[in-house]
């Protein structure tokens, strides 16, 4: 067995690359995976439908069908109330794609192949998050444009409007970590999709996104008043339309930090263990 020891110690053998080289690889590998994921997104009509057409339909449905029946005291009427809510929901629903894509890659052995390669192990998840964030921003901007077409207006100036979009994106990325975790932990496309409906629908609908919480029964208000989507949507509305931002913002930030702290490590662990 001496030969084994010698081989390991041989200076000519390819040793570990330096920390700097490895960091460089982590960046380029992440970009490569991002590029790949965006290419896939562009090529699959179903993803486009899920991420773009579905929220547009929601805008039209709530603006013109349900909206008239929902009493709000927002300047500019229900459309101004609705659009920040729809944007938050869209950001959350966009992460369906994250969970499903990861589950597919897992099942097909793509993740096995990538893990058996000398690439940065962090790049698969990082590239997925970066690509999905870009995808999310595109979708959000589309919804803003559609919102403008149906009468929504930012009433609070340019910088708060940008801040609202940034907050929506950060919220989406947080939800993305949860979705990535479910995708990797469940590992089956259909189950992931079904499970996504189970938690994402209640989370986004049982909030202030579409209707004032005061219209809900008391027991439901207890949940709706304290969950992250409500805080995020309230903050987004304050940023878009004016009003006190801070009371809901600090609670949003606590929730978002908590989600990142819990689910990012869980997703990374699920990726490491995924097989």
């Amino acid at each position, binding site marked *: 067995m001496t*030969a*084994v020891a010698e*081989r*390991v110690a041989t200076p000519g*053998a*390819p*040793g*570990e690359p330096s920390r700097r080289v490895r960091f460089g*690889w982590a960046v*380029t*590998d992440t970009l*490569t*995976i991002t*590029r*790949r994921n965006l*290419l*896939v997104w562009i*090529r*699959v009509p179903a993803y486009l439908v899920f991420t773009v057409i579905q929220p547009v339909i929601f805008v039209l449905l709530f603006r013109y069908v349900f909206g008239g029946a929902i009493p709000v005291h927002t300047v500019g009427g229900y459309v101004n109330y609705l659009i920040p809510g729809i944007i938050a929901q869209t950001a959350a629903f966009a992460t369906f794609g994250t969970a499903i894509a990861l589950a597919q890659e897992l*099942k*097909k*052995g*793509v993740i*096995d*192949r*990538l*893990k*058996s*390669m*000398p*690439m940065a192990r962090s*790049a698969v998840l990082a590239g997925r998050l970066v690509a999905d964030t870009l995808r999310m921003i595109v979708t959000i901007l589309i919804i803003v444009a559609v919102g403008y077409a149906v009468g929504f207006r930012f009433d609070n100036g340019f910088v708060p409007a940008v801040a609202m979009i940034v907050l929506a994106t950060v919220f989406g990325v947080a939800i993305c970590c949860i979705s990535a975790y479910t995708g990797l932990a469940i590992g089956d496309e259909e189950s992931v999709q079904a499970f996504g409906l189970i938690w994402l629908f209640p989370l986004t609908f049982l909030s202030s996104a579409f209707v004032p919480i005061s219209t809900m029964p008391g027991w439901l208000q207890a949940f709706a008043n304290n969950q992250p989507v409500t805080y995020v949507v309230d903050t987004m509305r304050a940023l878009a339309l004016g009003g006190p931002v801070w009371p809901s913002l600090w609670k949003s930030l606590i929730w978002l930090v908590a989600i990142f702290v819990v689910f990012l490590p869980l997703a990374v662990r699920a990726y490491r263990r995924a*097989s």
Partner: protein
Amino acid sequence: MSQYNEVGEQPAIIVEGLTKSFGEVHALRGIDLSVPHGTVLGVLGPNGAGKTTAVRILTTLLEPDGGRALVEGYDVVHQAAAVRRSIGLAGQSAAIQEELTGRENLEIIGRLYHLKWPQARSRAIELLEQFGLSDAADRTAKTYSGGMQRRLDLAASLVGQPKVLFLDEPTTGLDPRSRLGMWEIIRSLVADGTTLLLTTQYLDEADELADEIVVIDHGLVIAAGTSEELKGRVGGDVIEFTVPDRSRIGDAVAAIGAIGEGDPHADKETGVVGIGVGGRGSDALIDAVRSLDATGVEVHGLALRRPSLDDVFLALTGHAAEEEDQPAGRRRGRRGGRAASKDMERTAS
């Protein structure tokens, strides 16, 4: 020092006492392997025997519970990064991105091997050419046939020019023609000096491609040797037929009892009777016809065939290579079941 050949070169793969359990399921119960450079080891066994688990450990996807494994001299646990630079892996399903073209798939893998763009491009072109996919290079992989997808998958595993290649059931689920095409490609890789570890459920595949074969069952190596040596243990060719009148199975068994090596086996349910006849082949077949004719037992589908994996298992373990699930339900989407594979096996041989 028996592990080392005359030039004192260390084998490309060394496995010693490897164990792995998933909860209650003991997937590997102490496996030893040694694969010299430039040779092909066929790992033969039914589903759930532990083949995939072994490959996953050797390709750094899974950590063993005990024992150790070296690939190209690097420990798969402690020097995983160095192992990953030396290997290629193609699994049971095509691990390609179906929405991307064949070219894009290979270019992206090339980039992930840290090739510069121009090199990644030329390597992709080279591999598409080598695997007969040039015409389909710019079509999305979704439009490829099953055989083409597997070829692209195999091409992807070669982008990094691995010294050691792991193929986990490379032809499972392929039609006979694609399967032969795959064998052709694998043979050319081996001719170029690549060390290959190949898992398969098919004896004929191991027979065609492997220099050495190990048979794994329930996480243990139960036999090792060349294909000829293994066949010797099975008793060579097999004569098999069906007796439609189940009440006469006993007569049929008695009639052929003397012509083979060992005892005939008979299945009372299906009426299938078989016996190993060693190297006597067609002589034994003629004897069988005469003898059955003399007894007056009606038989169907009397044929001489080469021993199958089932025969190997019957001979080595006394039980058939039955379908078993991979531990903890971790088996990935396998295309085609055992029944389909069996048909394929017959057609191909």
